[in-house]
């Protein structure tokens, strides 16, 4: 069982991203559950989404308190939310940001960090800072839990059409290729 917590802000598509990731993982034959933490979300407010994936069926429909992987699709939400809360020893962080790992205030025990300047990529593709599909690419590159091909298939089978579909396929591709993965255990 791998537990994933996604952090973002309302309007960036964290919930949509979790659905696409669930679809892609299910297509690869894994069992998966995604539960967004919904309230009266509004644009810009912090949001979270919880995911589990396993080779066995998953029964617990509960939130996640000790994530193995944290996917943070917003570069500043960590200033207002402790995104590392409960993070498992040896965990992985996939973070939207400009690549300065020292500024992340990483807790001890983080094994790997994938950094992707998702806002810059999103602005160049969508002209808006919608980072969700970019960060799915970063997630695939950093964790290896899902393939880029499966993510692209999930995006193609989703609600995107025409120019939006083309842009999101480019976004996931660029997110995958433009992520710097830092293996902290090797470095130490």
């Amino acid at each position, binding site marked *: 069982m791998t537990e994933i917590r996604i952090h973002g802000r309302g309007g960036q598509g964290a*919930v949509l991203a*979790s*659905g696409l990731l*669930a*679809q892609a993982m*299910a297509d690869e034959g894994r*069992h*998966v*559950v*995604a*539960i*967004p933490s*919904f*309230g*009266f979300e509004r644009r810009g407010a912090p949001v979270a989404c919880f995911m589990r994936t396993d080779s066995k069926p*998953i*029964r*617990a*429909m*509960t*939130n996640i*308190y000790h994530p193995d992987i944290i996917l943070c699709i917003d570069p500043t939400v960590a200033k207002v939310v402790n995104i590392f809360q409960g993070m498992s020893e040896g965990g992985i962080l996939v973070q939207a940001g400009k690549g300065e790992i020292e500024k992340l205030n990483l807790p001890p025990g983080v094994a790997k960090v994938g950094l992707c300047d998702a806002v810059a990529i999103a602005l160049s593709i969508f002209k808006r800072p919608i980072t969700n599909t970019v960060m799915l690419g970063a997630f695939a590159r950093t964790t290896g839990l899902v393939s880029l091909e499966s993510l692209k298939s999930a995006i193609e089978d989703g609600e995107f059409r025409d120019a939006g579909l083309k842009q999101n396929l480019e976004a996931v591709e660029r997110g995958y290729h433009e992520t710097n993965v830092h293996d902290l255990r090797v470095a130490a």
Partner: protein
Amino acid sequence: MTALAKHKKMIVVDGNEAAARGVALARPDVVAVYPITPQSSLVEALSAMIAGGELDAELMNVEGEHSVLSALQGAALAGARTYTATSGPGLAFMFEPYIRQPGMRLPMVMSLVTRDTLTPQCVWGGHQDAMLVREVGWIHMYCETVQEILDTVIMGYKVAEHPEIMLPVNVNHDGNYLSYGVTSCELPDQALVDDFLGPKSVNWHVALDPERPMGVDPLVGNAGGVGPSMFVRYRKGQTEAMAHSLEVISEVHADWAKRTGRHHAPLIEEYRLDDAELALVTLGSMTGAAKDCCDMLRDSGRKVGIIKVKTFRPFPALAMRNALSKVKAVGVVDRSVSYGWNSGPVYQDTLTVIGKFGLKLPAIPFIAGLAGADITVAHFERAFDLVAKGEAPPGPVWLNEKD
């Protein structure tokens, strides 16, 4: 791999979309909607299916829930198969037509995307809304998984339209954890569902017919003439149909299992109960974590089990007796409050079964998961520990009190 498995179509959806997919497969004639959290994405999905031609139904986007159910009663009286879904305050606004539906003996399926009630302000899941209408005469079935939502919505029509039942059915799924919880599930084939449901069964006795005009909702009662006996006839008919529905619900689930290979316990599910000494009673989506907790404690040698209530109204007293008679002590985890008894409604019904059948076992009340609070494996472990001690506290144990 069986021939059945080869043709499986898997979809990855949340509980609301699963309900909408189930509804579409049941081919209703008329769908009336008014959006409310956490049901909105369900009726949006249905509206999109109707707009896109995937579902050939009349969509009535009316001005509020009172009108939703009133409109559907008219449609049902004209012989239509109908559907709607609501939650919390929407159900409250729907209450007047809601209490009339069972007496009119109009079959219908409505999803209750369960939500805790105001006040204080909350938009999150809980069973309080559904529990407020538990004695109105609708059948209530609670779902544990996204797949069970899809399957039960379809089965609901077969129960509701059974000629000996003719009652409305609520298929309940938990707001948040199931309404927005995404998993993969199997989408049955349209031909399979068509064959399972058969031709639409309309209550032609009350259906409007210009050739055979009659009052379908007559003024009866009071203390003279045919009033008292006629009123009793209505109520007896309803209660007898409710009692009989337990058998029909079981038959319908067995038929569905034969066709799809998916066995959902129709009334009460016993999980690892045969040699259990302690059990927890659960309802709805909390059951998954309860089963995980049960397995974890079993691995450490403790004899524990789970009793899941699927059909809550009518209450399956015999099936509950059979389950309770296997254990030495029980705890009941309610996701709502019965203010009159300072405990939960499922707990009260458990006590009734214990008393009715002369069982001798302690029962401990727990309340958890109100207004979207999470009920985790750790919460269930604590509940099992308290049941093992066998000390009934004066009031309920509020499992999220210190969260």
